[in-house]
């Protein structure tokens, strides 16, 4: 079944937009983190779609790279969030603006 590239890209764009808006609007660090993951996966989806469309495996290899980076990022990011929570007993990112003046 030949699926349409445009459909995949549209879904990818929607996911990315939801992620982006989520990053900007969410104050909860965990939520922001999940939105970032969502954006990464949206990009992964588009990469895979292009790879399939052009019959070129490079895009899929690239997705592996992104996934490994995302895994590392999850480890570091969650570590930061836990350390932050220990200090402030909160995961609200606006509480993290203590370097300002």
């Amino acid at each position, binding site marked *: 079944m030949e699926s349409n590239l445009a459909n995949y890209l549209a879904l990818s764009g929607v996911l990315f937009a939801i992620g982006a808006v989520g990053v900007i609007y969410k104050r909860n660090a965990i939520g922001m983190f999940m939105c970032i993951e969502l954006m990464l996966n949206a990009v992964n989806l588009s990469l895979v779609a292009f790879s399939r469309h052009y019959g070129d495996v490079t895009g899929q290899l690239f997705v592996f790279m992104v996934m490994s980076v995302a895994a590392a990022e999850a480890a570091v990011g969650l570590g930061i969030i836990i350390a932050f929570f220990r200090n402030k007993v909160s995961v609200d*990112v606006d509480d993290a*603006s203590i370097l300002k003046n």
Partner: protein
Amino acid sequence: MEMTENNLLSLIVFAPLVGAVINWIVGGKLKNELFSGVVASVAVAVSCVIAFMIAFGFGIAHEGALFIDKPVLDHVATWMQVGGFRADFGLGMDRLSGIYVCFITFVGLLIHIFATGYMHGDKGFYRFFAYLNLFMFSMLTLILADNYLLMFVGWEGVGLCSYLLIGYFIQKDEARKAAKKAFVMNRIGDWGVLMAIFLTYSLTGTISFFDKVVDGEKITSVFTYVTSNLSAEPMTAAAILGGGLTTIGVLLFIGACGKSAQIPLFTWLPDAMAGPTPVSALIHAATMVTAGVYLVVRSNSIYQMAPTAMVIIAVIGASTAIFAASIGLAQNDIKKVLAYSTVSQLGYMFLACGVGAFVAAIFHVMTHAFFKALLFLGSGSVIHGMHHEQDMRKMGNLRKYMPITFATMVTGWLAISGIPIFAGFFSKDEILYRTFAADKYFPAGEFPGNEILWVVGIITAVMTAIYMTRMMVMTFWGEERFHTKLDDDHGHHNDEHHPLPADFKPHESPAVMTIPLIVLAVLSTIGGLVGIPYALSSLPGVESIVGKDANHFEQVLEPIVKLKNEAAADSTEHAIGSEHSAVAESAPEENHGGHSPEAIAKERFLAALSVGLAAFGIIVGWILFRKKPLRKLPRILEEKWRIDEIYNGLIVDPLTRLSRQSLWKGFDLGFIDGIVNGAGEAVVSIGGVVRRIQGGFVRAYAAVILIGAVVVIGYFIYYGLKLIG
């Protein structure tokens, strides 16, 4: 071209430099008075011996420099050579510099020996002698340099050493101020010398003093060029700014004014007495201050073609002489009296230069070096014996305690006053006579107003006798005033000064100090006999002792300073003389080498007059001050005509105000600091605007990144679509 060369010449200059370096490096480590004193004195002694060898021709291959027409040269190195310009590190001793070098090294040696006694116990002993040697090096460079530029190096060097030595007692505020003042005033003069050198080069294309051959290149001296290629300038005020020989002459004289303390740049010399007394004797009486006279006499070929400059020199010289003498009358500090006396005597020397009596000027330089060095060292001995008391009002009756100092200073006193057979008489009398007879010798014909200058000269002579008598009477006669309290005795300027103990007795100085005094006293007594003018040597009775041609000094110097119209007069006279040789032989006394009977009679009369005036001055001084040594004198004289106050009010204070108000507060604080602070403030205020972007909220940053990304992508899409079609 035939040249006499002698490499020993550079040793005269470099021996004191070596002494200075040894004293600075080794002496500073050892801190041994004997070592420092011996090194410094031996260095000068070497210079002195070689100077006399070359000048008089002992133990060298050629004749003495004083008796040959060509100078003895020593080319050390080529200093700079740019296009047609050439300046050598070359030394040359001719008749003029020969005389100078001999008396500088000899008097310098005596003063070095004296100083080993005077400076005994001083913490900076080695430093003092290193400076003193460095001064000798600079002074000898100045005198022996064979071109204007190297001479200027020495000229600056002596200025520096003078600064260092005036400010030697660095802990004293007075000394520091005096050193600064001397340096600044000298710098004003140095401007004149530099300008004169530039102008000389642009006019003549050379700066050399002597005709010589270096590296096969023939070098013409400035004076040869001037004499053979340029013509005398008219005596007009316009010539001063005309950029010709008169301008050079005036500029050189500005330099001489600074170095030799003439009006208007004389006020530094009395202040310079804040230095140690041997320094006052060496630098500020015998040698450095006469460098201005040397410069003028060295450039006499230029001056002979610049009558306006000569008149200016004569007038300023005479004015300085009488002005300084009037101040000297009322000073109470023994060294200040001698300082103003030096300024006054330097005025005489310039008067002599101005009226064309260059020989008399140099003669007076030499005799003055003897008797003024003697008087200064004598005063140093007195100060030493009085435990650093310099105020004559606290002295009196010292002849009882210091017989040798007293006896030697008497000869200095008689010499400077102008009593016959003492050295000062012959030189001063010669200057006065030549001033009176200036019309006969002046290169440009009639000298305007020489009679007035002569009257000024004899009044100064009387005043000299009075103030020197006052000084002697206050110091050596009368009652002992060692413990006198003075009205204005608040806060004595001398930090080393302690109140004298109640049973204080002055003491005679040690032999290292009295022996130089005795030698100088002998020179002050008989040193003038090398230049007895014909009018006096031909007197019956005198002639049988000294011979008719007793003016050896003039015979030595004559070829260097040959006056133009005198040369002409001599040649006609010789022509007549050969025609009437029989007549001339029968009456040799009446017509001898340009000495007409009337002139001789006039000169004898004037000599008798000046002796009378000198005696009159001494008697007046004796009557005035013998009974009342503390006699009150006009306040204006005691306050030195308030010249320092006038200079401060007219020049120093406005300059300080300008610097403070406009340059410091206006330009520096306003403009320069404004630029620097303005740059900083601009950054801060721009930052104040820009910092609002940095809210510290991660989500805001993310939004900005998103907007940026959308804009970039939108741009690419928009133009990408356009490109496609």
